[in-house]
């Protein structure tokens, strides 16, 4: 009976060692999983820091606003051209008005 018990204990101790190895292996694997995740996380953050995406957005926004600027500048030029045509057309009226005031003291237009 005692012999059997000794054998049993040894067998169980052997099984305990195997169990410890399983747990140990799981711990090693777990560390690896976390380490890989940390490396992946670092890569994700670095990628975001180096990403060209914001510059692309900036370029698109800049182009959009540049078009708006060009439109405003064109409007300004059109307005200037229009005022120039009006002034050219009204020049004779103004000259006559100035003459009337200077020579005859008439101040109505």
């Amino acid at each position, binding site marked *: 009976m005692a012999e*059997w*018990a000794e054998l*049993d204990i040894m*067998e*169980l101790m052997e*099984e305990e060692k*195997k*169990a*410890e190895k*399983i*747990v140990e292996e*799981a*711990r090693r*694997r*777990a560390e690896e*999983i*976390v380490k*890989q*995740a940390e490396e*992946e*996380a*670092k890569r*994700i*953050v670095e990628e*975001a*820091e180096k*990403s060209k*995406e*914001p*510059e692309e*957005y*900036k370029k698109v*926004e*800049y182009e959009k*606003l540049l078009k*708006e*600027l060009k439109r*405003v*500048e064109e409007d*300004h030029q059109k*307005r*200037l051209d229009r*005022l120039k045509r*009006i*002034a050219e057309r*009204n*020049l004779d*009226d*103004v*000259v006559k*008005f*100035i*003459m009337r*005031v*200077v*020579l*005859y*003291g008439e*101040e109505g*237009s």
Partner: protein
Amino acid sequence: MGRKGVEPLKLEIRRLAEEEAKKILDEAKRKANSIIEEAKRKAEEILRRRTEQALKEARREIELKMASARIKHKVDLIRLRQEYTEKAFSEALNRIRTLVDENREEYEKIFIKLALDAISKLEDYDEYVLIVREKDLDIARRALGTIEEEASRIKRRNVKITIGEERIECVGGMIVCTGNRRVYYNNTVEARIDYVKKVMLDKVHEILFREVRT
């Protein structure tokens, strides 16, 4: 303990170990997921911040250009207004010069009107002196009677008008002094143009840039 008693124990030891291993791995996976999720969130935040900054820069650059364009437009408008205002006054002066030199009959009427206008603006005196340009001496002499008569009517007293010895350089018109030479009124064409420039510039611009001709 017999053989039959050991096997279940061994199985239990293994089961517990595998359970523990699974627990460890599950926890590691959960932690790994959490690390990745946190990194993704951080990356999104970095991208959001960088994009916001990039857009802000683009807008600021264009806003500067826009402000510059607006200022340039204002300057262009001012220059255009100045250009045409100067053109108008210059052309008016040329036409007046031509009228004064070539239409003496009309200019004589204008001369009389300008003299009386000056006299009416001066205080009441018994005598006024007309200071004219050399070319207008003939007109001044001819118009003296009419001016004297009209001035007397305006001032409601007998007024004497004389022509001063001194001459002025101008396009037309005259300077009128009181007899004692203490007060004078400059009614030359140039002085009247200056008056229009100072007092009636808004009106000049209004006519110059009105949309519809009246």
